[in-house]
């Protein structure tokens, strides 16, 4: 420790003698490290949020949509919007071994009235399995049952947002709401889920039996064919999601009598596919910031090297003197290396502080959550020290190998 402390003390003294220059020199490192810290904080915050949202939509969820949803090119499938049926849903649950549950879904936006309040919300007609597939829970009251589906009972499960808007005084269960002038009894209220990854309010919804929806609420086109808007299915585990998708695809092709050259008249998506896009854009952003970070670290390192070279030249006589009074090559090398490392580490430290502050500001302004990662902070700090070693070595070596006499008489 004693052999290490004097070089560091000397370094700090030498740097403070030129504090403005030292400050400007480390800016590059500060910016680089700050960018790394902010990137990691915001990036892992985003990943965290996406993962939470995916989990909130339902675990192992696979969605089957009618027609082709592929954006590129014109697909004939678009006209076939009614290609999925309730029978498809039943078949998927019964015949695909990797599929645990399958809930047919029809949706429509409707104005809902309760007493003097009214509210536009999404009406979802489905089966009791929907709750399990979407990981929904009933907070108060009870879910509707299979008997309700069979009997087309006029019962409804309300999301929290709907309850808040229609029953500001509370006590929704047992009350009646009118959907398209059809009175429904509220049998239960769903536990709140918050926002979906796409920013939708998942609590702004009313669930009713699919049979009731078709007969009483929806327009005639859907009501007639036994068609459904989508089928929400749940794979038995995360590991078999791909298998389940394959099984579902071949079953549906078979049921829809599709020959080999014909394209699917449905689309199967799992949520990972959906949010991989989001995550990959976040990844691009992170890579961009990482590139900025490494470039500014590089520039900062070159700046340090430059200033160290200037410093070595300015202090040639000092180096000559030190050599004359017995400094070994290693002593001089260590002294200037210590200066470069102290410089870079100070930049790293300031960068960490600036990065954390930046991340906090971003999260405040953009409303993004941030996750602070200890290892990332240590790594960034360590890396800035390495920048000092790497870019400080050449100037330090130049200083250490000076000829004592030439150095002493340097003008």
């Amino acid at each position, binding site marked *: 420790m004693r052999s290490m402390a004097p070089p560091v003390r000397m370094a700090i003294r030498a740097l403070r003698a030129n504090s403005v220059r030292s400050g400007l020199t480390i800016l590059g490192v500060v910016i680089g490290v700050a960018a790394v810290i902010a990137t990691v904080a915001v990036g892992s915050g985003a990943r965290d949020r996406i993962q939470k949202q995916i989990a909130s939509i339902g675990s192992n969820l696979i969605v089957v949509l009618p027609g082709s949803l592929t954006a590129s090119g014109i697909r004939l499938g678009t006209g076939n919007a009614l290609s999925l049926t309730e029978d498809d849903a039943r078949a998927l649950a019964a015949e695909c071994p990797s599929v645990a549950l399958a809930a047919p879904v029809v949706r429509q936006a409707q104005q809902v009235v309760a007493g003097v309040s009214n509210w536009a919300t999404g009406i979802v007609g489905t089966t009791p399995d929907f709750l399990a597939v979407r990981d929904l829970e009933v907070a108060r009251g009870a879910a509707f049952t299979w008997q309700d589906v069979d009997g087309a009972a006029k019962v409804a499960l309300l999301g929290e947002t709907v309850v808040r808007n229609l029953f500001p005084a509370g006590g929704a269960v047992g009350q009646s709401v009118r959907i398209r002038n059809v009175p429904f009894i509220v049998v239960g209220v769903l536990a709140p889920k918050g926002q979906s990854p796409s920013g939708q309010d998942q609590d702004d919804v009313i669930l009713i039996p699919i049979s009731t929806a078709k007969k009483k609420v929806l327009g005639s086109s859907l009501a007639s064919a036994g068609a459904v808007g989508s089928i929400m299915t749940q794979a038995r585990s995360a590991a078999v999601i791909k298998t389940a998708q394959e099984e579902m695809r071949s079953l549906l092709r078979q049921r829809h009598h599709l020959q080999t050259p014909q394209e699917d008249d449905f689309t199967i998506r799992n949520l990972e596919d959906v949010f991989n896009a989001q995550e990959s854009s976040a990844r691009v952003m992170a890579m961009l910031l990482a590139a900025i970070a490494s470039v500014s670290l590089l520039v900062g390192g070159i700046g340090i090297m430059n200033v160290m070279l200037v410093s070595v030249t300015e202090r040639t006589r000092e180096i000559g003197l030190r050599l004359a009074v*017995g400094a070994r090559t290693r002593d001089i090398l260590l002294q200037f290396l210590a200066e470069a490392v102290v410089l870079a580490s100070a930049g790293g430290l300031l960068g960490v502080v600036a990065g954390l502050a930046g991340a906090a500001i971003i999260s405040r302004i953009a409303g993004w959550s941030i996750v602070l990662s200890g290892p990332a902070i240590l790594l960034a700090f360590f890396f800035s020290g390495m920048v000092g070693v790497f870019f400080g070595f050449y100037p330090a070596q130049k200083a250490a190998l000076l000829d004592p006499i030439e150095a002493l008489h340097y003008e």
Partner: protein
Amino acid sequence: MDPLIEVRDLTKTYSAGAARSWALRGVSLSMARGEFAAIMGRSGSGKSTFMNIVGCLARQSSGVYRLDGIDVSRLSRDELAAIRNTKIGFVFQSFNLLPRTSAIENVELPLLYNRTVGSTSRLVRARQALAMVGLEGLEGRHPNELSGGQQQRVAIARSLVNSPEMILADEPTGALDTRNGVELMAIFQELNRRQGITILLVTHDPDIAAFARRVIRFRDGLVVDDETIRRPRDAHEALAETMPAAGVPAGADGGSR
């Protein structure tokens, strides 16, 4: 006992392209411990080159140099550094103190490169060295707060701090006025008499050389005269005679060790 310095047929050439210039053309001399010698000569006479080789800052082109019985031409760069650190103290014309660094820290500098000295004894020895040159109380001053004479005394304290065998002084009075120059010689004479430190100084000023007990004259890379002075001038007397107004510097007459 071996002489402290023994050189035989020492040459030093510098080659600039095809041309070859001789700084030393075969110098032989020896110095015993406890001598006080002055080297004189015009610029280009080879005296500075000789000092650099004796000070282990440069290597000869041919010939033998034994310091304390050691053939230093065989030593590595770092081994030479160790010899400079422990056996030799340097005093330069331009003081060469570190700016923005207190007197005591300047004096401590050689001790930083001496592995055998811990941080507490470093401070003690630096204080002692400063006291020896009459600068007690000024430990915290920076060079720009000291007079030229005081700065050169800090430099002498720095050269003393590792208890060297000899002090090599290259034109030590060159940047000082006459009075400060004589005071400096008084310090050298004290160190030489009381502590037996060998002193070798380069000067072109005969008045300064007169304080030495031996004067070696260089010309064109050769020793042309090597004279022992039986009764050198005494710096204290010189100060008392010529400049009665000011006394002898406090620490110079009492090497308090």
